[in-house]
């Protein structure tokens, strides 16, 4: 009787999730095949025949692999530096090093533009220093994309490696030393193998993020098209069928990549845990004055480089439009841009982004929790597996694909098929954010529920608490950290979203990110910076309040 009710609820939630998550993807595939009226392989044939499509596919792939390598090369040594050595300012700098994770991708991109673009700060400084006629470099093409990726994604390697290092049992290293292994042999034969699961997870996350990355290739790519920008270009050219095929291909690549990396991860997982959690190894205090000074200088330089994007955004937001031409340093600074934000109708995107992100976060929280709870209660079986799969799937599918899928599915009215016209209404963007945020809230909730001692709920039941009181008084309070972290990340993601918004927005529902792009197009750098600062501040606040460094 009790299980019949959960069965019913699980089925209902499963259907709702399927309608939100898999149905649009399926529709996209069907329409790419011309279905259901005129089945054709013409769009796929066109895709196969065009060399630029294959090129975009290849570029997406190698950019992602290169991003993993670069991010690891930056993140892993930093993690060792901050976790295994002790020097002045270690705590503060260690926290600063995690900051880029809270920066929405688009904000990071425009900050890089203001810094290293043709008329960026650093470029101008170098130009005037060396008395060059031309800017010293152009921030464009694959190099620029990789630079931005390395900056925003090394954090995954940094955080995962640090967490794994802090969990390492010191006794293992002592055992290696007592068996005669030197520092390097211990590193390569003990420490690094033990870090493999963490490195694998970081690589997976970096690869998927990079494959789905849109802002950096969109702004810096120019003619260098990857799959995400190729899809948007096709969409803007009105080639719906081709855009759908491209979306399908990108989704396939993403799922293949996920499968391959998961497989690698699983083989790495063999052995590892000894079951006993020991004491983390002590940090090595740097003895000599010189090495301490060196570590300090290195650390502070790194912090400066990492904080430069934040600082330059804040600075540019005080530069009035068209006052900064060819000077090395902006000649006029005032609050005009900020005042203009309030007086003009420029506040609209801010309000839009805030309510849409908040609504999507609340909905994702409720739906993710419901799905996770039902999956955890039913434990095994078809429905539990289905629920778990459905809340995880949007994580693997790039946002651009979902945008195309939602545009395809909810652009026509076929109520008997579950298709309604939502395009052009204020509901499509919150819906898109909701779908993309499900993994952030749902997987966190599921992990929390799986890790919870079932005896706690049984204790509450034996003390007379019915299911609602158990949920409210026991489960939710215990899940709060996981839910808060998930909600914080979901809110940040939705607030700064560009990938799905650029496909689905209308003038009335335009979010901050879209407004940043149009300000850039109008050369109103000050206004773009103001929006950037708003996004950056809101995201960092959300990250600090809810995230508490629990970045999945």
């Amino acid at each position, binding site marked *: 009787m009790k299980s019949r009710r959960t069965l019913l609820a699980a089925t209902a939630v499963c259907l709702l999730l399927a309608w939100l998550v898999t149905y649009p993807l399926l529709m996209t595939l069907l329409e790419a095949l011309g279905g259901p009226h005129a089945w054709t392989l013409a769009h796929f044939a066109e895709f196969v025949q065009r060399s630029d499509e294959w090129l975009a596919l290849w570029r997406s792939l190698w950019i992602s692999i290169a991003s993993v390598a670069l991010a690891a090369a930056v993140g892993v040594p930093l993690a060792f530096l901050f976790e295994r050595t002790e020097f002045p300012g270690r705590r503060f700098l260690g926290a600063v090093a995690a900051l880029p994770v809270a920066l929405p991708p688009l904000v990071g991109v425009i900050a890089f533009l203001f810094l290293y673009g043709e008329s960026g700060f650093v470029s101008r400084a170098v130009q005037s220093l060396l008395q060059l006629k031309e800017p010293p470099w152009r921030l464009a093409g694959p190099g620029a994309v990789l630079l931005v990726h390395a900056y925003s994604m090394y954090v995954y390697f940094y955080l995962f490696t640090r967490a794994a290092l802090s969990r390492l049992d010191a006794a293992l290293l002592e055992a290696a030393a007592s068996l005669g292994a030197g520092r390097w042999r211990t590193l390569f034969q003990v420490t690094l193998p033990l870090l493999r699961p963490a490195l694998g997870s970081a690589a997976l996350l970096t690869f998927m993020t990079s494959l789905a990355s849109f802002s950096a290739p969109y702004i810096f790519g120019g003619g260098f098209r990857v799959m995400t920008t190729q899809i948007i270009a096709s969409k803007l050219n009105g080639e719906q069928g081709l855009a759908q095929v491209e979306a399908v291909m990108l989704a396939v690549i993403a799922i293949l990549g996920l499968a391959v990396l998961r497989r690698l991860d699983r083989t790495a997982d063999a052995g590892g845990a000894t079951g006993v959690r020991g004491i983390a190894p002590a940090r090595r205090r740097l003895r000599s004055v010189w090495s301490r000074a060196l570590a300090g200088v290195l650390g502070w330089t790194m912090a400066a480089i990492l904080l430069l994007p934040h600082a330059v955004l804040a600075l540019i937001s005080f530069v009035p439009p068209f006052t900064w031409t060819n000077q090395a340093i902006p000649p006029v600074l005032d609050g005009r841009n900020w005042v203009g934000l309030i007086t003009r109708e420029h506040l609209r995107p801010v309000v839009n982004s805030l309510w849409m992100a908040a609504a999507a976060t609340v909905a994702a929280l409720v739906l993710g929790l419901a799905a996770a709870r039902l999956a955890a209660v039913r434990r095994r079986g078809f429905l539990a597996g289905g629920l778990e799969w459905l809340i995880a799937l949007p994580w693997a599918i790039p946002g651009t694909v979902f945008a195309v899928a939602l545009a395809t599915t909810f652009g026509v009215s076929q109520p008997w098929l579950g298709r309604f016209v939502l395009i052009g209404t204020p509901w499509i963007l919150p819906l898109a954010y909701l779908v993309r945020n499900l993994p952030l809230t749902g997987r966190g909730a599921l992990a929390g529920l799986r890790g919870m001692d079932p*005896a706690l709920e049984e*204790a509450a039941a034996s003390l007379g608490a*019915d299911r609602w009181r158990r949920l409210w008084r026991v489960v939710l309070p215990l899940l709060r950290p996981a839910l808060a972290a998930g909600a914080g990340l979901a809110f940040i993601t939705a607030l700064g979203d560009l990938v799905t918004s650029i496909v689905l927005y209308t003038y009335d529902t335009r979010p901050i990110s879209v407004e940043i792009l149009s300000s850039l197009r109008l050369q109103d750098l000050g206004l773009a910076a103001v929006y950037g600062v708003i996004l950056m501040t809101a995201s960092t606040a959300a990250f600090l309040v809810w995230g508490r460094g629990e970045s999945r």
Partner: protein
Amino acid sequence: MPPFLILEGLDKSFGTQAVLRDLSLEVNAGEVLALLGPSGSGKTTALRLIAGFEPPDRGRILVGGEEVTALPPERRHFGMVFQHYALFPHLNVAENVAFGLAGRKLSRDETARKVSDALALVELPGFEKRRVGEISGGQQQRVALARALAPEPRVLLLDEPLSNLDPTLRERTRRELLRAVRRVGITTVLVTHEQEEAFHLGNRVAVLHGGVLHQVGLPEELYAQPATRFVAGFVGRAGGLRGTLAADSGVRIGSGGDGGIVWRGVPAPDVAAAALGTPVELVVRPESLTFAPSGLEGRVTERRYSGAATYYQVELARSAGGGEIEVQAPADAAAEGDAVRVGLLPGGLPPRIFRGTT
């Protein structure tokens, strides 16, 4: 007076694995029944069926004449103490103890009084505001007991309540637990894998093995008259001697002298009607054996001195049937390597005869 808690023919399997087969038990009002068995015996499953966390595949559960088989746990009014206590980590001691009082519509003062009464009962007065993470394991155990007792449940269920404490603390906590349960006078079912705990706390003890109830009775009955070979070995120390059934409840052991030695015992129910010559096993407690001038020939392989008693491991000669047996004897009775003869202690507990396994 009819029994207060009745289990009738309970079956439970998980998948194809039958964990409980046709379990029937009766617990009288105010009695403490201990469910004793090794891990995997089904004792914890039995407790979870009683609590209502799992539904039985077959059978009924009755409390005070009312059938509760289909009732969800929150409507059974049973108190439970979990193996790892399951205290709510986000609530303090008082909030934990008050959790079960919420449905009562009590005033704030009444709730506070009931909480402090419950804490006084487990000898933790004044612990209301403490966080559950900052008190010791023994104190957590008592808070869990107070929490279970505060709503005045009909039945108290204890799932290995002492297994999480270190041995030095266990005996003291056990005595405190018994005192609290006796003071309340509540009908209690206790699950444990330790014979000493079951004998100390239980008025009666039920022995489970492989999902089957082997015997239920007073501790003295289980020790002196084990119903099955398993009970004989699991409850207390016992050694087994192989032989064949002889006349007058005798067992012929070994082949030395004039065709072996015959020892008398008490046949278990399934041997009572067996034919003479049937292979049987004579199970005898170490304290019922002694070194004697005549008896089974053997050699001492190990002497174990434990202070209160000394145990000798004796390897029996081939002519005495072979095998090993444990003998309790004075500390200076023999040394390792000595050739000895083992006999039955006059006036000791009579050995039990079980069906042999050959």
